[in-house]
């Protein structure tokens, strides 16, 4: 029992990271119907830029800078990759452009930071804390708190501020939002900035727990994508639950069956959700009366 509890706790931190990246997928999908398939690379760049910065300053001071970097990186992806595709009404062009940009980012990172994985200095003590016999790393707590904080901040912004409502309006009906005087192109750019920003933030949260390197984003981005599908691309909080399910499924399978099979339950769940409820476990189908 204690072992299971331990596995669940470890799975939670991992799951929150999946959830956070998946949340980033949702942000751009809501406003523009497009996804940044380079979310994993946005995370990787955030982590590596953070790594370089912590050589010169404290971890806490580095976070706001990485967030700004992430936002700029997102704007770059939208302007260079997505906007031209949306303008020419190319239905799938953005898939190729975001994937291409992701590959370019990975290559650039390999050239700047090298091929080897590097340890990221932990800002918190690395000795685990004990709760009822379960060991929790302080960094794991920070991951959970940080991920929840940023998701709540974005949700609060969307629900309370007029600019956030403009974002929701753009997701609901882009043409009608334009008629309200909302610059919907700007809203889409903003959603890309926000999306890459959360990924970069996720990068510096997870980096001290894992290793940092140019390839760290590939698997994370892909798994987070399946979390976004499992939770529902339009479901807000569904990605947290989806992330936790996947994270816990991985750690428990890794222990009880074999680490070689740890990715299987998540993928099985993905297949199951896609065949039973394609909108995602928590995906809403909007009620529309005519």
């Amino acid at each position, binding site marked *: 029992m204690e072992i299971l509890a331990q596995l669940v706790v470890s799975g939670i931190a991992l799951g929150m990271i999946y959830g956070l990246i998946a949340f980033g997928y949702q942000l751009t999908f809501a406003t523009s119907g497009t996804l940044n398939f380079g979310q994993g690379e946005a995370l990787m760049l955030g982590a590596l830029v953070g790594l370089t910065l912590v050589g010169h300053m404290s971890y806490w001071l580095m976070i706001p800078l990485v967030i700004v970097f992430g936002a700029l990186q997102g704007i770059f992806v939208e302007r260079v990759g997505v906007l031209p595709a949306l303008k020419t009404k190319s239905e799938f062009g953005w898939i190729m452009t975001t994937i291409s940009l992701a590959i370019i980012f990975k290559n650039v990172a390999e050239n700047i930071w090298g091929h080897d994985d590097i340890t990221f200095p932990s800002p918190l003590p690395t000795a685990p804390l004990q709760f009822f016999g379960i060991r929790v790393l302080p960094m794991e707590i920070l991951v959970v708190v940080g991920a929840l904080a940023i998701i709540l901040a974005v949700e609060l912004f969307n629900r309370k501020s*007029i*600019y956030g*409502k*403009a974002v*929701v*309006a753009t*997701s*609901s*009906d882009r*043409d*009608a*939002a*334009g*008629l*309200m*005087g*909302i*610059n*919907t192109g700007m809203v889409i750019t903003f959603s890309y900035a926000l999306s890459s920003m959360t990924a970069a933030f996720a990068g510096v949260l997870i980096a001290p727990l894992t290793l940092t390197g140019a390839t760290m984003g590939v698997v994370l981005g892909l798994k987070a994508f399946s979390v976004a599908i499992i939770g529902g691309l339009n479901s807000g909080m569904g990605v947290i639950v989806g992330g936790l399910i996947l994270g816990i499924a991985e750690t428990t399978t890794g222990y009880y069956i074999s680490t070689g099979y740890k990715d299987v339950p998540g993928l099985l769940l993905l297949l199951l959700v896609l065949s039973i409820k394609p909108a995602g476990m928590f995906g809403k189908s*909007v*009620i*529309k*009366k*005519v």
Partner: protein
Amino acid sequence: MLQIENLHAGYGKVEVLHGISVAVPKGKVVTLIGSNGAGKTTTMRAISGMIKPVSGNISLNGKNITGMTSSRIARSGLAHSPEGRRVFATLSVTDNLLLGAFPRLTYGRERGDVQGDLERVFELFPRLRERKSQLAGTLSGGEQQMLAMGRALMLNPDVLLLDEPSMGLAPLLVSEVFRIVSELKGRGITMLLVEQFAAAALNVADYGYVLENGRISCHGPADQLKNDPAVKAAYLGAAH
């Protein structure tokens, strides 16, 4: 107030409007009537920037707005209650109305008394007040139409475009919509009204244009059009 000169517009390579000119003077209600597919909605869309005109000139308050994005046109003071209502289904009634005032709450338009205007919209449409926290997607068709009109009013517009406000509504609601249009006219709001109920539209309007296959076939004061034998035969029908 709103001047449209020799407007050509369409979708892709298909031209729908072949050079139409319409004038909406300040404080007046002008109606655009015509059969299905004549280009009424296309005219509205070209005016509010939902589609880019191919050529021609549109000016609002003497300012050229041709080819501007819909958001800039809205910020210049033109509100468009579109065909099919297009309310924000996932937002509450109040949020929908506040978004109508987006340029006033952010930039581009004088702020004025947004809360007071919200109250006035609720007075005009008491049903919306009853349902103010409900999601717009769960409203009935008639309520959604009220919301679309209320939302457009929240801009405090110089010109209000109403596209088929009575479409798909029960007869009782249709007369309610026209009652509200004349109420708004009484308040001095400049309007361009597109309607399939030509007789009712001509009753409330000051001036009318008849659109036929993307061209204006005739125009004149509403009273005159109502009694025009050709208009009567084609659009007013025996029922009226």
